[in-house]
Every structure is written in C-alpha cells, then in structure tokens.
C-alpha cells in the first residue's frame, strides 16, 4: 500500500477508457443502450450516471470478494451483485427523476446485461485491488458516458431543436411558422445514432492514429 492513491498508474485507469480503450468506440461494447437512450440529452446523462454508479460499486464489491469467489460460479456471483445494484439505481431514479425513469423504461434494467459491466468485472475487478477497481469503473463509465452525451447532444439539438428540453432553435425559424428551418427527423431514429457513433469513431481514429487497425 505504499503507492499513492492518485499515482500515475492509477490515473491512467481513469484516462485510458476516455480515449485509447474507450468502451464504445474502441471495444465496441454497450452499443445497444448507446443507440436506444440517446435521442435526447437528459436520458443520456441519467444513463451515464446510473452506469457509473453500478459499474464503480460492482467493481469494488467484486474486487473485495475476488479471493473468496469460487471460480466456477463467478459469473453468477457477478450477476447477483450487478442486479442488486441496478435495482437500487432503478428505485432511486423512480423516486427522484420519475419522468426520465419512464423514458429510459427497460434500459435501466438492461444495465444488467450491459457488456461493459460484465467485461470490466471479468477483466479487471477479479484481478485487482478495490481502489484500482473503483477508478477503473469510474473511468470506463465515463468513457461510455462521454460518447453517450456527445451523441445525445447532437441528436437532441439537430433532431428536436432543443437541449435538455429547452428550445435552442427559435420557433420563428420553422417552416410551419413561416421560417426556413425544419428538425431533422432522421436524427430521432436510432439508425442515425449508429451513424453518429460511426462519425465519432472516424474522428477519433483520424486524431489517434495508433487505433487504426490494418
């Protein structure tokens, strides 16, 4: 335990998933929820926080238990931990942000099956100490959430002309009000989320050349 809490190695656990090993754009995990909840910015942000809470605490719990879990039943133990946390998150969302919780509908429950969470538990938490696992969880959820928020930002701005529910595009611009503008209906459909994620991947790889595979 001589290592400082925020040593260079530990900080890397936080920063790596934001770029070099981003769960969505590099490992291509968690795409399903990234397409489903990002039609607007608010659900994207709530989803990010939920996944962050679940992933960070699941990582810590599994890391604490890592030497006591029999190898053969580790997956089911992980699932129990994740499911318990997801139920907690779901209850909190229902209590405090009921409308968003309704908007997210099944996708809160489906955090259980989010590949990123199982992946981090298997790949990291089972072999590392709690503090590092916590940082890894926060980092990966942040990497996931960053993409979600960027996609949600563009989809809500271009598809609904608003951000977090506030109108950005003036009403008088719209064609129905005698203006010239129209919201892009394609942005609200999930295929466009896939295209936006694709564009993000494109931009990221042209800036970060070592990610380009042959």
């Amino acid at each position, binding site marked *: 335990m001589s290592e400082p809490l925020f040593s260079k190695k530990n900080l890397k656990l936080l920063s790596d998933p934001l770029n070099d090993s981003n769960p969505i754009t590099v490992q291509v995990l968690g795409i399903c929820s990234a397409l489903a909840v990002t039609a607007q910015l608010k659900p994207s942000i709530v989803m990010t926080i939920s996944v962050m809470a679940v992933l960070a605490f699941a990582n810590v719990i599994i890391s604490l238990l890592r030497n006591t879990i029999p190898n053969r039943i580790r997956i089911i133990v992980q699932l129990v931990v994740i499911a318990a946390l997801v139920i907690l998150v779901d209850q909190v969302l229902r209590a405090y942000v009921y409308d968003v919780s309704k908007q997210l509908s099944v996708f809160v429950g489906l955090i259980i099956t989010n590949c990123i969470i199982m992946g981090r538990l298997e790949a990291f938490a089972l072999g590392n100490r709690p503090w590092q696992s916590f940082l890894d969880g926060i980092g990966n959820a942040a990497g996931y959430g960053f993409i979600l928020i960027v996609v949600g930002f563009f989809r809500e701005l271009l598809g609904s002309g608003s951000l977090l529910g506030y109108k950005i595009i003036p009403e008088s611009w719209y*064609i129905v009000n005698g203006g*010239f503008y*129209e919201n892009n209906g394609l942005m609200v459909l999930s295929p466009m989320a896939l295209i936006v994620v*694709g564009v993000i991947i494109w931009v990221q790889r042209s800036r970060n050349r070592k990610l380009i595979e042959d």
Partner: protein
Amino acid sequence: MKFIKNFFERTEPLVQKGAKYHWLNSVHDGFFTFLYTPKTTSKTGTHIHDYIDLKRTMSIVVLSVVPALLFGMYNVGVQHFKAIGELASTGFFDIFLFGLIKVLPIVIVSYGVGLGIEFVFAQLRGHEIQEGFLVSGMLIPLIMPVNTPLWMIAVATAFAVVLGKEVFGGTGMNIWNPALVARAFLFFAYPAQMSGDSVWIALKDTDKVVDGFSGATPMADAAAGHLNYSVADAFFGFIPGSIGETSTLAILIGAVLLIITGIGSWKIMVSTIAGGAVMGLILNAFAGSAGLSPEVATYFSMPFWHHLILGGFMFGAIFMATDPVSASQTEKGKWIYGFLIGILAIIIRVINPAFPEGMMLAILLMNTFAPLIDHYVVAGHVKRRTKRAKVSA
C-alpha cells in the same frame, strides 16, 4: 480555346510539391484532366489503354441525363402555369424560363456543395480529385421535388458525399448510390418537404390556383384509388413529380445513349423493367381477391405497364440501378439484381402505404445485396467448373 490549355500548362509548376500553391495541386489536376486528356503514360505493365477514362465516362452519363433535365425544367414551368390556369396563354420560352429559374439553383447547390467536399477531401488525403461526383451532382437535383429548400439539398448532398462515399474510400468504393443516399436522407429526415401534395409544383402562397387543383402526383392518386392521368401525359412527362423523373421519353433517349456507348448495362435496365412488369402482372392477378379495400383493389388492377411510366421507376431503372459501382458486377448477377429491383419497387409502391414510391428503397436494398449476389454467382461458376474438371479427369 488554346489559352485555357496554355493557362493550365503555365500554372503547372506553381502547384508542384514544394511550390507556392502546392495545396491546389489536386484542384489544378482535376480541372486540367477534366478538360484535356492527360498526357501521362504508364511506366510499367500494360501500355495500351482505352481512350475512355473515368472522366470521359462520367461526361457521357451527364450528357445522357440532359434530356431529362431539360424536360424537367420545362415540366416545372408547365405544372406551375397549369396550376394557376395560365398554361394556354403562356409562351414556350416563358414556361421554360420559369422552370430554368427554379431548377438551376438546385443544380448549382448540388454541384457546389458536392464538389467542394470532394476538393477538400482530395487535398486532405493528398490524392487526385475523384470525378464520381460529376454524375451524382447531376442526379441529385433530378430526383428532388422542385420545392425542396436549397439548404436541405446542401445538407443531403454533404451527407451523401461524406457518409455515402468518402467514409468508404471515395469514388468506386461506395456501397450505395450516393444520389439515392441523398434522397433517402431527405426522405427520412424531412418527410414533410419530400412527400405529400404540396411539394411537387412550384407555387408561391400568393398564386391563385384553379378549381379542382390538387397537386398530388398520379402515384399518390393511384394509391388513393383514383387513376386520373392520361397515358400520353405520363409517358411524355406532363405530370407532377420529382424534377427529372416524369418523362419516360426523355429518360429513354438517355438510355439509348448509355446503351450505344456501352456505359450503362442494358441487362440491368431490361431486367429491372421486366421485374416491374412481372410484379405488376402478379398484382393484377390478385386484384379480385376478397378483403382488399376498393382503393387498393383499383391500384392492384392498374394495367401493369402503367407502373413503368409513373413515378421514378424508369429514372431509377436507367440511371440509378445501372451505377457500375454499386450494382452487381457479374453478368448473371446483373439479371438477378435488376429483376429483384423491379419486383421490390412495385411491391413497396403498392403494398406498403407508408411509401408512395418504392424505387429508391428497392435500389438501395439491392445495392446492399449486390456483393452477395456476385459472391454466389462466382461460387456457382467455381462449383460447376470443378465438377466438370473432375468428370473429365
């Protein structure tokens, strides 16, 4: 015209690597080789080349859509003056001029945005300007309703060029026809501006329309169970519709040019039309079946060849389906590919009420499947020949 050549030759050293305007190299090269056959020769390998290169091919395709474009301009004027009841009292040139003023900005926007993006990508990636957009830039205006706002055309063109073509590696690499990607983008993004009764005819709010004017396309009417067009109007193109798609005659003139020069595949054209006719006949056969509402039954029983002259079917069959990049490459594959486009276009058109026209979606779907068709055609050849080899051995 010598001075143009002189200009390009004189400016050539200025755009070489390391020179002052080196970043203009691909633009210079693009315009020079567009106007004059390049004098560069191959250093190794094959030394005999066909004189016709990609730029010349594209020029011929552009030439072959000119009849449809000119007629489209005229028809925009005709539909306008018909709607306000002044068709008989307006001269030919006034009608054409009205259409020209409406259509020309769309063409300019399409070319301006598309070529601009092509130039930027050519500079960024350091390769020559690819001439694929010469054709797409001409096809995009022809498949738009005349009332589409110009900024939407700009957005759709940018989308088609960047996400329909450049992400796949540029001209020759795209899996879908870029012009149809632009159309599909607009169709799903701004449905109010791309369908309905008010987008096909250029009218201002102040224009007074004649009694009984609807503005709907014959296809929309047919879907509602009214067949109120004359076959001659549909064939010559005096019906509302996207700018260049209405006149079957003008499109067929282009088709002749494409077939004579060998640039468009006649197999795809013929099989697409055959597919449409076959599906029309199948629908006719089921027109009497119980359970169809009277409107649908009318649409089902429409003479099968009317499907070929209405809407975008012919334009798609001649200019869109034959795009050599996104179509099937094998000869047998071309027959399958075209036939399925024809069948699907009519199915979508008649049976799915959400889509008044099915040609765009049918071609995009078959573009997606073209490599698969090719794969199985080639696999079939390999299998047959292996079998033959075994028998003789």
